[in-house]
């Protein structure tokens, strides 16, 4: 496969993931609106017709696979292309984020696995799956209490810290990734470079802030710094030791 085709695959799968994180973030932020909003949003998603639900999941999964596999191929080739490193390794222009896409990407991959086990498959805390409530339900039946699960998830400081750190790494990954996407697809020019780089940076920070708000505020409330979330649910969300 030509080196450029690999770059196109990286860019195209990257675009899917770039779009996904924004939608995911927007969904998450509904936690701030309260138990009803987030539970109902989650329920709507869960109740999508199966082909759509699983179609999108498979599409996302495929994008991740393409992104990761291509990255591994590229990194392998790149290492082989420069078997002897310079004694002095310096750069004129390249920043930390660009140089460490492999590192940030690997940690993010680990994060994604953890995140899926944590909130989607719920293997880490199997009890999350049992929590049900009528709040947010369209027909007053019991639905999954996502609100309580999120509060409970971030009740463990280590988890919150891991999430925030991972989101910071995502921010760094996007800072290079978004502008790189334009370049790989041949859409960047010297004239647009400044604007696109700025947009990429802005986007990366928005994603970071958007994703970090929830773990940060939950932790803050845990330590009594302020009260944003429903205190009743909050008190029940502390996990059994």
């Amino acid at each position: 496969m030509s080196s450029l085709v690999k770059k196109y695959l990286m860019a195209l799968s990257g675009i899917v993931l770039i779009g996904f994180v924004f939608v995911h973030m927007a969904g998450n932020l509904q936690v701030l609106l309260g138990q009803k909003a987030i539970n109902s949003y989650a329920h709507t998603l869960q109740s999508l017709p199966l082909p759509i639900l699983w179609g999108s999941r498979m599409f996302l999964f495929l994008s991740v696979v393409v992104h990761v596999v291509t990255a591994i191929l590229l990194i392998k080739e790149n290492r082989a292309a420069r078997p002897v490193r310079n004694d002095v390794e310096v750069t004129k222009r390249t920043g930390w984020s660009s140089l460490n896409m492999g590192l940030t990407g690997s940690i993010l991959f680990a994060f994604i696995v953890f995140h899926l086990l944590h909130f989607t498959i719920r293997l880490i805390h199997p009890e999350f799956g049992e929590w049900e409530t009528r709040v947010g339900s369209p027909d007053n039946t019991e639905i999954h209490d996502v609100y309580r699960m999120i509060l409970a998830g971030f009740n463990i400081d280590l988890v919150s810290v891991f999430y925030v750190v991972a989101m910071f790494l995502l921010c760094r990954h996007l800072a290079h990734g978004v502008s790189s996407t334009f370049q790989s697809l041949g859409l960047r020019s010297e004239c647009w470079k400044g604007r696109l780089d700025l947009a990429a940076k802005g986007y990366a920070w928005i994603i970071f802030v958007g994703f970090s708000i929830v773990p940060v505020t939950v932790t803050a409330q845990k330590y009594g710094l302020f009260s944003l979330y429903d205190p009743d649910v909050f008190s029940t969300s502390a996990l059994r030791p």
Partner: protein
Amino acid sequence: MKLTLKIWRQSEQKDPGRFETHCIDGVSEDSSFLEMLDQLNEQLLEEGVEPVAFDHDCREGICGMCSLTINGFAHGPENSTTTCQLHMRKFKDGDTITIEPFRARAFPVLRDLVVDRSAFDKIIQAGGFISVRTGSAPDGNALPIPKDESDQAMDAAACIGCGACVASCKNASAMLFTAAKAGHLNLLPQGKAEQEKRVLDMVSAMDGAGFGNCRNYGECSASCPKDISLDFISKLNRDHAKAKLKKLFS
């Protein structure tokens, strides 16, 4: 000036190579970096040590033959400068300077600081030309070319093929070189007829030579003595994608 030089020595391609340290005194700050190495070699000759082999020719920044990595920078720390145009006044008395060859699998070291850059020739042979028989050309003014386009082609054509882009790239990618060469011809109407074949062939020759992949750092452009813009890489990506798609659907 008095300097300590940490220089890469390698007797031949198969030798793993090592660093050797030499001190040199009485360097004029008006001398160029290569003249400083000349002086070192004269000194080594007296000491009975084999002189350091390095590539150089025109010594006026245009032939692209000189090729040193100085303190980790291809052609040294100055921007838009080849090694031969780098002068010692840019260094301080007492400095330690590390001198390495251009490192890449596609540029095997022949001796000390001399590398084999014939991989670049292979890329050009794959498609870096316009097929025109001598004597069959129409009048030079038969085809007006807008000044902007011609100037842009000239920006790309300014590439001197030194390989600093490869040496400065952490992945030893030759994208800036290939993009400049393909871009120069693709931007001109004379070169349009062969554009698709050209980009596909040149990219596959580039891949075949063992260069790494472009990761859009821009380190190549920052180290380029002729300031070739990353735009040309973007253009090559675009032209290549179009050619690939067209081939896929035809």
